[in-house]
């Protein structure tokens, strides 16, 4: 039998003060990111903020500062530029203030055709989104998040106890906030695809948490003499090898997607990658200790046999 971990007996619950402090800092970061997004100063994708994005693929490489100068001298001054790898790809984004009627995409293409006549390009993609649509997408994303969280709390509360439901939701929320915070610090664009990734990692982190909770429930029924802390610690240790093996396989899937999946999948996979790391950590160090914080003695799980 090949094993990464044998039978372990680590005192995870005893380290909860350290874990809560660490998580607290990360969550604070995430909350700052949320405030920044709400106030519009974060790096919101044009699908949320409204605006125009043009992605061009050039024959030869284009220097970003030259491209910016070319755009500015032709009256497109508020553009953000980003390069992609070795393919000579350039992403030009112009945010909200301009409306689609101004044909920003065509203007940008015309500028490059004029200023770099020897360097031909093909248009990979153009995206133009009116401000009203951006608002609608923001609302839709928010609704999807709220609905899925409500559903999760209800389901876990029904299957376990309310405190488990709340702990699971809090741990999941923790993961989403932390990844959001990381993306904010890395100055990655927050777009619809990233919101999808966040919701996926919420689902993933939840799975991880539910697996631990399941074991806690099982142990609560069979070992009624142990203290709750010992029971929970035991459960976490018992599922630890599963937690790690699973996380490893998911990471094995995500690493090639991040590195070789192309620019569209890159940020998406990166968010999931951080999410997996975070979710694994939180199911051990955040979700289970949270259950312990809430005095639930004599609850449904303890009574039932």
């Amino acid at each position: 039998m090949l094993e990464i971990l044998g039978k372990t007996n680590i005192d995870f619950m005893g380290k909860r003060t350290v874990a809560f402090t660490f998580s607290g800092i990360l969550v604070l970061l995430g909350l700052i990111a949320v405030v920044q997004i709400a106030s519009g100063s974060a790096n919101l994708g044009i699908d949320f903020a409204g605006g125009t994005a043009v992605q061009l693929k050039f024959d030869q490489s284009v220097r970003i500062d030259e491209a910016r100068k070319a755009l500015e001298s032709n009256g497109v001054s508020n553009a953000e530029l980003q390069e992609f790898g070795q393919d000579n790809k350039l992403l030009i984004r112009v945010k909200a203030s301009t409306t689609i009627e101004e044909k920003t995409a065509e203007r940008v293409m015309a500028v490059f055709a004029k200023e770099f006549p020897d360097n031909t390009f093909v248009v990979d993609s153009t995206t133009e989104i009116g401000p009203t649509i951006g608002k609608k997408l923001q609302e839709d994303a928010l609704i999807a998040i709220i609905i899925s969280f409500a559903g999760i709390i209800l389901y876990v509360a029904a299957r376990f106890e309310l405190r488990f439901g709340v702990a699971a939701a809090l741990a999941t929320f923790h993961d989403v906030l932390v990844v959001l915070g990381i993306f904010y610090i890395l100055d990655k664009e927050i777009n619809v695809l990233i919101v999808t990734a966040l919701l996926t990692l919420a689902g993933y982190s939840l799975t991880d948490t539910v697996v631990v909770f399941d074991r806690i429930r099982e142990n609560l029924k069979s070992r009624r003499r142990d203290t709750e802390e010992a029971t929970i610690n035991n459960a976490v240790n018992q599922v630890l090898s599963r937690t790690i093996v699973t996380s490893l396989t998911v990471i094995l899937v995500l690493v090639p997607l991040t590195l070789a999946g192309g620019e569209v999948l890159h940020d998406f996979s990166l968010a999931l990658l951080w999410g997996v790391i975070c979710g694994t950590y939180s199911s051990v160090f955040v979700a289970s200790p949270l259950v312990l914080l809430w005095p639930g003695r004599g609850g449904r799980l303890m009574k039932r046999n």
Partner: protein
Amino acid sequence: MKKVGGRLWLLALVIVASCVSFLPSYQPVFQALPGWLKGILPEKGIALGLDLQGGIHLVMEVDENRAVEIAVDRVVTSIHDLLVDKSIPAESVTRTSLDRITIQFQDADQKAEIQKLLVDFPSFTEVDTEGTDNSLVWQLLDVENKRIKDSAINQALETIRNRIDQFGVAEPIVQRQGLTQIVVQLPGIKEPKRAKDLIKETALLEFKMLDEENHMRLDLPSRIPKDMEAEILRQFEDKVPEGDQILFERLIEKDTGRESRIPYLVKKRVMLTGDVLSDARVSIGQFDEPYVSITFDTKGGQEFERITAANVKKRMAVVLDNTIYSAPVIQERIGGGRAQITGTFSMQEANDLAIVLRAGALPAPLKIVQDLTVGPSLGQDSIDKGVKSTLIAGAMVIIFMMVYYRLSGVIADFALILNLVCLMGALSALTATLTLPGIAGIVLTIGMGVDSNVLIFERIREELRNGKAVRLAVDSGYDKALLTIIDSHVTTLITGVALFLFGTGPIKGFAVTLCLGIAINLFTALVGTKVIFDLWNQRKKVEALSI
């Protein structure tokens, strides 16, 4: 030991059904199938999303208020004509707000006479409080206002559908979204800009007479550069006589491609519009220049004959969306219901003009609120990279499972491939659209499928460690992992359903693969691999398990 037979058949059935339903998605094989089989199978399988094969996704809004304005403007013209016909000397008829018309006249005695005309315009009512002794205010009925707005979007849908049909796009989607929006999806299109122009063009064709009596026309410059239009309009704003307007003819030099404009003084009154056309085709003139020949319907033909007869030796402008295409002198009465639109355009422009004229005009201008265009090269690039990274990811997981769980790992790998086969089959059966996030969803399903097996295997290992016999360990490992697997899958399913219900576009594609994947996972983990373990355990002596 459990009986295996029934479940083995079920497994075989699912695999065969998945493979068969996947067939239409892979055209090279599908085309090679015998005819009778093709007849049974559905024609379509998995479609590639716009992000994978390139194409356009447009969301447009119909300018409803403009539709009302246009309708009211038409009534203004009719009232004006009627007053002329009845020789009632009114001072002016103008649209004074979105849906109101004010008629002014010098002599208060005429009021009653004009009021009687309202009978001819049943969609209007008189606003008593607004009128004076020398003016009348008519307002569009609310019911009619609503009807115009409503029919505007339906008419726009119809027109766009017509245009796209004639443009020739495979599997276009044109549908209404919400109350005022229209969604157009054109997959795999090679000339996105041309298609967008074709859809957006209002294509309101009007015939108007030039004002050749007013002297002001002599003040207009004979030819101006393309970007001077606004300048000229401002310069002459106050000098344009009542009932006239300045419109520009577009000129393109054949050799240099340089554009210029000729301003004309044109009477606002519309003689005839494009509604009365029955056909429009491209023809080639004697100097090899393309022009569009149009055919009027019976009523339009008679009307055109009457107009041309009454205006011989005068100049008539052919106006499309407020741009003059040509302004020929009417040489004689034109019967036969045919006319030509000449101008300086290329073959392709002439072609597109014929298309929009045949398909009819939009009731009001469209506003594009969302426009996603993906070039075909990026699509191919994304497919290549998506497939490549998925294969690498799959291979890594397969190898890892074999190394870590040995023979049992091979069983898990079988489950993984089974997962993929079933998922592709299910997506084909639903004729789902595969997008890039959809591929990500598939990859995620691989991860989750592995997780179910890891849960089971770890449980079996635990049971083995506790000294249980192999058969018992397998059974109780599955039993104990069952609840956990269901719980974890249902919670993820909740997220998936929320994404499906509230997500748009790419997110929806992701949610579909995620939800399907979860359901299939449950099947492969609880039925698929268990059957193989049971089959294995049916041997007489089972002493060790390679796990």
